[in-house]
C-alpha cells in the first residue's frame, strides 16, 4: 500500500492543479475578444446550413460568417462585385469566366483551398447535377447514414438549376485558375457566381461526412468563423477561425440564438443577454431607443415586397381584374403608416444598382380606385370571392399590410377573402383555389436577371408552381439571360416589365423591403443593404 504524507499529498495535488490553472489563465488572457449573442426569430428554415438547401432570408444572416464565394457582392458599398476567394477574374468569351484563386486560403478543417475544391463546390456531388428522381426517392424515406450517403436532396438541384440555368462545367486550368463555362452566352455569370449557392467548401470534409444531413449541419467553408455547434431550432454557435485569410476575426464566439417572439428578443437585448436583436418592426424603435445604450439600425435592402397573382383563378384569369388589384393599392399609405416613411415605393421590380439597365422613367401603377372600378366593370367582375392566403407576419408588418390592402381592394369592389396559413408550402399548395398571396424578391446581383427572370421566368417559382406563365415573357427571359447586346437587353427588360406589371400582371410591387436590427449602441457595427450580417474586422470596431 502506498502511504503519502500530508505534505507529499499537497505537493502532488498542486502539481496536478497548477498547470491546468496556468493554461486556463493563459487562454483567457490571450483572447480578449468578445462573445456576441444575436437574437434571431429563426436560425434556419430547413435546419441546415448548406446554402444550396437554406435559401431563406433568415439563412442569409449567418452563411457569410462561415462561408465565402469566389466573387462577393459589396453589400456595404456600391453593391458592385469585388474579389473574395478569387483575387481576380476575366472573361474568356461570352460563355466563360476565368477566375484566379486567392493564395493561402484555408478551410476550417485546416486544409488549403485548391482549384479541385472549387471545381467540387460547383460539381455534381454537391449540386446534384446528375440527381435522378430514383435517387431522390430514398432521401428522407430511409434512415440517414444507412443507405442514402451524401446524395443531396432534390431541392438542391432545383436551387442550383435556378441559379445557374445553363451551367456546363467548371474546368481546372492549373493550381490557381479555374474556368466557369456556361452552355450559352451570359453577361451576368460573375453575378451568378457571387450568389451564396456558390459557397466554396472543402471536398475532403464533404467526403468525410457520414451523410448529406451531417454535412449540411456542419459545412466546412473558408469564412472567418467556423461552425462550433448547431442545435436545430435552438442555437448556432460560430467560433473565430484564426487562420482566416482576411486576418484574425474580431469576435471569439458568435451565438445566433433562436427567440421566436419579438418582445422576448427585445427583452434579451435590454437585459444585456443579447447584443443584437433582429427583425425589429418599426413600431418597436421607440421602445428600444428609450434606453440610451441601444439603437435600431438598418434601412432599405435589395428586396421588394410583392403581391402575386394566380392566373388559374377564374376571376384572376382576366388581366383586367389583376390590373384592378394593382390600381386599388395605396402604396404610399403603407410606406407612411407602417414604415414611418423609412422605405420607398420603387419603380417596379428593379433597383437603381442595375446601372444602365435601370428604367428610370418606369412608373408603378398609380393609386386610382376609380380606374380599378372601371377595369372591374369592363371585366364583368360581379364580386366573386378571391382567396388571399396569408401568413402571420412572416414578413415584418405582413398582417397590417394585408389589412390596408384588403380595405383598398374592398373600396374598389373586389371581394378578397383572407385565408390564414401556417407556412409557405400551405400558401403555395395546389389543394383548393389559390388567388393572391404575399412574396418578396431579392436581387442578389446588379442585373434584372437576378430578380425578374429568375423569380418569374420559366425557372422561377411562380412559373414552376403553375401560378403564372406568359409565352412572350418566357421567350424574352431566355433572351435577357443570354443576350450580350446591352442595348437590346435594356429593351427586353422594359418589355418584361410591361408584361409582368401591366399587360398580364404576374405581381405588383408594394414597397422596397426594410431590415431593422436593434443593437448595443457601443458596438461599431453597420448593417448592409441585405439581410446579410457582416462580422468581419472590416465591419467591427473603429
Amino acid at each position, binding site marked *: 500500500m502506498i502511504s503519502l504524507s500530508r505534505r507529499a499529498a499537497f505537493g502532488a495535488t498542486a502539481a496536478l492543479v497548477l498547470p491546468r490553472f496556468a493554461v486556463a489563465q493563459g487562454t483567457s488572457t490571450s483572447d480578449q475578444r468578445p462573445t456576441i449573442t444575436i437574437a434571431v426569430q429563426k436560425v434556419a428554415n430547413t435546419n441546415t446550413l448548406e446554402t444550396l438547401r437554406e435559401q431563406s432570408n433568415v439563412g442569409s444572416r449567418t452563411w457569410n460568417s462561415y462561408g465565402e464565394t469566389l466573387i462577393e457582392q459589396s453589400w456595404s458599398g456600391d453593391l458592385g462585385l469585388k474579389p473574395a476567394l478569387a483575387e481576380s477574374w476575366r472573361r474568356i468569351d461570352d460563355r466563360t469566366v476565368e477566375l484566379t484563386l486567392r493564395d493561402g486560403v484555408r478551410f476550417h478543417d485546416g486544409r488549403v483551398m485548391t482549384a479541385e475544391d472549387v471545381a467540387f463546390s460547383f460539381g455534381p456531388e454537391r449540386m446534384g447535377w446528375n440527381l435522378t428522381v430514383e435517387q431522390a426517392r430514398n432521401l428522407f424515406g430511409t434512415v440517414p447514414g444507412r443507405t442514402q450517403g451524401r446524395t443531396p*436532396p432534390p431541392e438542391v438541384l432545383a436551387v442550383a438549376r435556378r441559379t445557374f440555368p445553363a451551367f456546363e462545367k467548371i474546368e481546372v486550368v492549373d493550381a490557381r485558375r479555374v474556368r466557369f463555362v456556361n452552355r450559352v452566352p451570359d453577361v451576368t455569370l460573375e453575378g451568378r457566381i457571387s450568389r451564396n449557392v456558390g459557397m466554396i467548401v472543402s471536398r475532403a470534409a464533404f467526403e468525410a461526412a457520414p451523410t448529406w444531413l451531417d454535412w449540411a449541419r456542419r459545412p466546412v467553408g473558408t469564412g472567418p468563423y467556423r461552425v462550433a455547434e448547431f442545435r436545430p431550432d435552438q442555437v448556432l454557435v460560430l467560433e473565430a477561425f484564426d487562420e482566416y485569410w482576411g486576418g484574425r476575426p474580431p469576435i471569439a464566439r458568435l451565438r445566433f*440564438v433562436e427567440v421566436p417572439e419579438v418582445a422576448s428578443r427585445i427583452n434579451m437585448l435590454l437585459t444585456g443577454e443579447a447584443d443584437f436583436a433582429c427583425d425589429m418592426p418599426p413600431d418597436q424603435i421607440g421602445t428600444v431607443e428609450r434606453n440610451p445604450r441601444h439603437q435600431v439600425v438598418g434601412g432599405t435592402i435589395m428586396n421588394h415586397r410583392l403581391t402575386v397573382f394566380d392566373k388559374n383563378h377564374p376571376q384572376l384569369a382576366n388581366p383586367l381584374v389583376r390590373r384592378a388589384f394593382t390600381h386599388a393599392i395605396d402604396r404610399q399609405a403603407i410606406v407612411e403608416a407602417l414604415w414611418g416613411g423609412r422605405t420607398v415605393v420603387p419603380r417596379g421590380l428593379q433597383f437603381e444598382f442595375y446601372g444602365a439597365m435601370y428604367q428610370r422613367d418606369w412608373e408603378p401603377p398609380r393609386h386610382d380606385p376609380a380606374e380599378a372600378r372601371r377595369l372591374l366593370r369592363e371585366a364583368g367582375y360581379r364580386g366573386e370571392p378571391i382567396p388571399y392566403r396569408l401568413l402571420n407576419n412572416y414578413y415584418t408588418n405582413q398582417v397590417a399590410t394585408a389589412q390596408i390592402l384588403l380595405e383598398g381592394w374592398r373600396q374598389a369592389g373586389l371581394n378578397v377573402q383572407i385565408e390564414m396559413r401556417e407556412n409557405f408550402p400551405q400558401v403555395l399548395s395546389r*389543394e383548393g383555389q389559390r388567388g393572391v398571396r404575399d412574396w418578396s424578391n431579392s436581387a442578389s446581383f446588379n442585373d434584372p436577371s437576378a430578380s425578374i427572370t429568375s423569380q418569374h421566368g420559366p425557372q422561377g417559382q411562380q412559373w414552376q408552381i403553375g401560378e403564372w406563365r406568359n409565352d412572350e415573357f418566357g421567350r424574352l427571359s431566355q433572351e435577357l439571360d443570354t443576350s450580350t447586346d446591352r442595348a437590346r437587353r435594356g429593351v427586353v427588360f422594359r418589355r418584361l416589365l410591361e408584361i409582368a406589371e401591366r399587360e398580364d400582371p404576374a405581381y405588383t410591387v408594394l414597397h422596397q423591403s426594410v431590415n431593422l436590427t436593434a443593437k448595443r449602441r457601443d458596438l461599431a457595427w453597420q448593417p448592409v443593404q441585405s439581410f446579410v450580417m457582416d462580422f468581419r474586422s472590416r465591419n467591427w470596431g473603429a
Partner: protein
Amino acid sequence: MLRFLLGRIGRAALTIAMVVTFAFVVLRLSGDPAQIIMGADAPPEAVDAFRTAWGLDQPVWVQYFHYFGAILSGDLGRSMRDGRDALVLVTERIPATLALTLPALLIKIGLGIPAGIYAALHRNSLADRIVMVVAVAGFTVPSFVLGLLLVLVFAVQLGWLPSGGQEGWRHAILPVITLGLGGAAVLARFTRSAMLEVLGQPYIRTASAKGVPWRAVVTRHALPNAAIPTVTIIGFMVGSLIAGAVVVESVFSWPGVGRLLVVAVANRDLAVVQCILLLVATTMVCANLVVDLLYGLLDPRLRSAPRRAGA
C-alpha cells in the same frame, strides 16, 4: 380491488387508443407534410417520391394500421425532417421541460393548497379576500402576459434574472414562477371551495360538538374529505408535466417539448407530433389512474361501490 384496477387500466388503454386515432386522422387532414418538408422549390416528382417513401400515397386506413402496428411493436416512427427516431427527439427534450414543470408543480402544491386552506378557515376575513383576489388574478391572467410582466420587472427593470434561454438554473426561475403561480391560483380556489363545503357538513359540527379540538377536526376530518377534488386537479397537473408549458417555453425561448411540438406541428412532422401526443396522453391517463386509485384510498365507499352495485 383487482376488478377495480383492471377496469381502470382497460379504460386507460382505450383512452390512449382513441387519442392516437384522433391525432392520426386530424394530422392527415390538416395539410400535406410532403409539400411542407420538401419545400416550395421541390419538383413535383420529388414530392411524389417523398409521399411514396413515407407511405403517404396509401389510403389513410392502410397508413393507420401500419402506424398502429408499429406502435404496438414499440416503433413510434421517424422525423420526416431529418430521419431521426421521433422518440429520441422527444425524450431529448423532456428533461428541459421537466426542469420547468416539476419545480412549478411544487410551487403549485406548496403555495396553492395552504393558501386555499387558510382562506377557507378564515372565510370572509381580509386574508381570505386577499388570497382570492390574488388567486382570481393568477387564474385569469394568461401565462404569456404574466411571463412578459415578470420579465419586464425582474429582468429588464431590476436586472436580477435573465429573460430567456436555457443556460443555467437562473434562466429557469422566471418560467417556473410563471407556470407555478397560475397553477397555484387554480389549486387555491379549488382547495378553498372544497374545504368550505366539507366544513359545512354535519359530521364536522358533530365532531366539534363532541369537543374534538379544532386542529384535529381540520386535519382528521376536513382535510381528507376535501382532498378528492384537489387530488383530481393535481392529477391533471401531473398529467400536463410533459407538454404543459408550450406557451411559456415559447415566451422564454426554452427548448423543451412544447417548443418541439410547435415546430413539429408547423412542419407537419407527423411522427414527432404523434409521439408527443402519445406521451402526453399516456402521462395524463397514468396520472388519472393514480388519482382513481387514490380516490379509493381516500374514500373507502368508492372502493366498495362496484361490488355493492353488482350485489
